[in-house]
């Protein structure tokens, strides 16, 4: 089985979010970048397939050279090869088009992406990629078993879960649950050494125009002070008469 794991390079979850250039650009100074948490769960599931059922695992990112340490980390965790498509990720649709080109050329059986990346929260790349490649698609995937060409996936839905049967080639949007957090891997010294010699191929992008353009950013208005109360009666009164939520 040939697996491709899409890796988004995102600010670490504790990052303070700031903007520069008149609030038109994300301020990367002092920000540490990591593998998108949803992708990390998917990468770990891919490693499980590799070890238990036999698979080659490639990882891919659409982005500039600054994302290579994140790809190297995925190699250190155990992926066999990395691909970087050398163009900034400006909108979800154009990222999906770049990825679709590689998926078609590479003949992947399974593509694992994260449900969404925690920077722009678009949640659109996996679904667009599935549609562009004509592959089946399962979003918010919290369980995946593969037996030959057949796949059984569990998907989280509002208020519960759903079990689906489908077939390869398949694209999933994965998240926590597809593996447990305790199964996530930290690269060890041997993995880090090996990652240095594993192939990281840089591909030039295909021609594509973005469908949307982000032109500015804004931070939420600062919040007023919390109203501290001493009694539950007072709290109920405020929620009813002031906030009008009960």
């Amino acid at each position, binding site marked *: 089985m040939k697996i491709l794991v899409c890796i988004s390079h995102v600010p670490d*979850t504790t990052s303070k979010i700031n903007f520069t250039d008149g609030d038109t650009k994300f301020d990367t100074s002092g920000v540490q970048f990591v593998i998108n948490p949803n992708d990390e769960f998917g990468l770990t599931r891919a490693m499980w397939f590799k070890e238990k059922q036999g698979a080659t695992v490639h990882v891919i990112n659409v982005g500039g050279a600054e994302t290579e340490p994140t790809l190297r980390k995925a190699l250190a965790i155990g992926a066999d090869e990395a691909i970087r498509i050398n163009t900034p990720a400006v909108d979800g649709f154009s990222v999906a088009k770049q990825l679709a080109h590689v998926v078609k050329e590479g003949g992947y059986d399974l593509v694992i992406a994260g449900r969404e990346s925690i920077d722009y929260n678009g949640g659109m790349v996996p679904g667009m990629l599935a549609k562009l490649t004509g592959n089946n*698609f399962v*979003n918010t995937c919290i369980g995946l078993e593969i037996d030959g060409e057949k796949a059984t996936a569990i998907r989280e*839905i509002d208020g*519960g879960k759903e*079990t*689906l049967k*489908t077939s390869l080639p398949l694209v999933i949007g994965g998240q926590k649950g597809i593996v447990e957090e305790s199964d996530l891997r930290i690269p060890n010294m041997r993995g880090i050494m090996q990652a240095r010699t594993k192939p990281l191929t840089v591909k030039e992008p295909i021609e594509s*125009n973005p469908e949307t353009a982000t032109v500015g950013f804004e931070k939420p208005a600062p919040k007023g002070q919390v109203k501290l109360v001493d009694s539950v009666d007072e709290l109920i009164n405020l929620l*009813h008469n002031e906030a009008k939520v009960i």
Partner: protein
Amino acid sequence: MSVLVYTESEERKIKKIALEAVSYAKAIADQMGTTVTAVCINADNTSELGKYGASKVLEVSNDKLAKFNGEAYADLIAQAAKKEGAKIVVMTSSANSKFLAPTLAVDLNAGFVPNVVGLPESTSPLKVKHSVFTNKAFAYTEFKTDISIIGLGKNSFGVKENETSITSEAFSPNLDSHDFDMEIVSVDKATDQVTIADAEIVVSGGRGLKGPENWGIIEDLAKTLGAATACSKPVSDMGWRPHSEHVGQTGKPVAANLYIAIGISGAIQHLAGINASKVKVVINNDPEAPFFKAADYGMVGDAFEIVPKLTEKLKEFKAQNN
């Protein structure tokens, strides 16, 4: 050239978020001098959509679509959009809409922006404000495509009445066999509980509750308020509560009217998931807990004393006010 809105239903009943989407679609249609067409799959009482501004509803009635099917539903909405010549398609941000919208975007060669938080800043070019960085900021994005898909964030516009006379029309899309490549084997859903996605009020517990055996006080409070229950990440990691209740950056987003956090410290990753909620109440025994900085109302004290008292008083309050 109408605005098309996909109105989700469940068990043949139109969902409240769908009414919000219609209200929003109507406001855009008014900005653009056009009308709203709703597309509704296997639902009863579709005429109620007129109350919120839809002037036409395309009614799909098909047993093969009784359960959600991403491929087929997207195919169907795309056909409806083409039939209506829609330039804007409005969807919600439910799990199913987020599944559908990207597929639909490819079908229609349309730009898609999710988590939109208000009416467009401009309509030509169409420019919307949406939440990014898991609610830690907002972005302004312009569409460059002929057709635009807007994913409306829950509770970001509100349900607004706007009585419009409505006609309904049966709509039978052409579905092909590829639409049914996926077979739903089972659906496992707690039907008697309010879900986080639909809830107006969410009662959430953290590690401060000490163990799963203490969750009765959370459930009692939630039941009294008709609320959904939720939790912080360590709580679900330890298996005290199901993963589906984990709220935050790596869990579920909550855009409720009222979010009550009990024994939760208020770590940045937790707050990121609940920032879109309107009113936040915090009960915590540590006055230094960071959550107090993000909250509207707070009580410093022991949850095991406060919560049962709050539930009891709320029951009295409800008895008097209903």
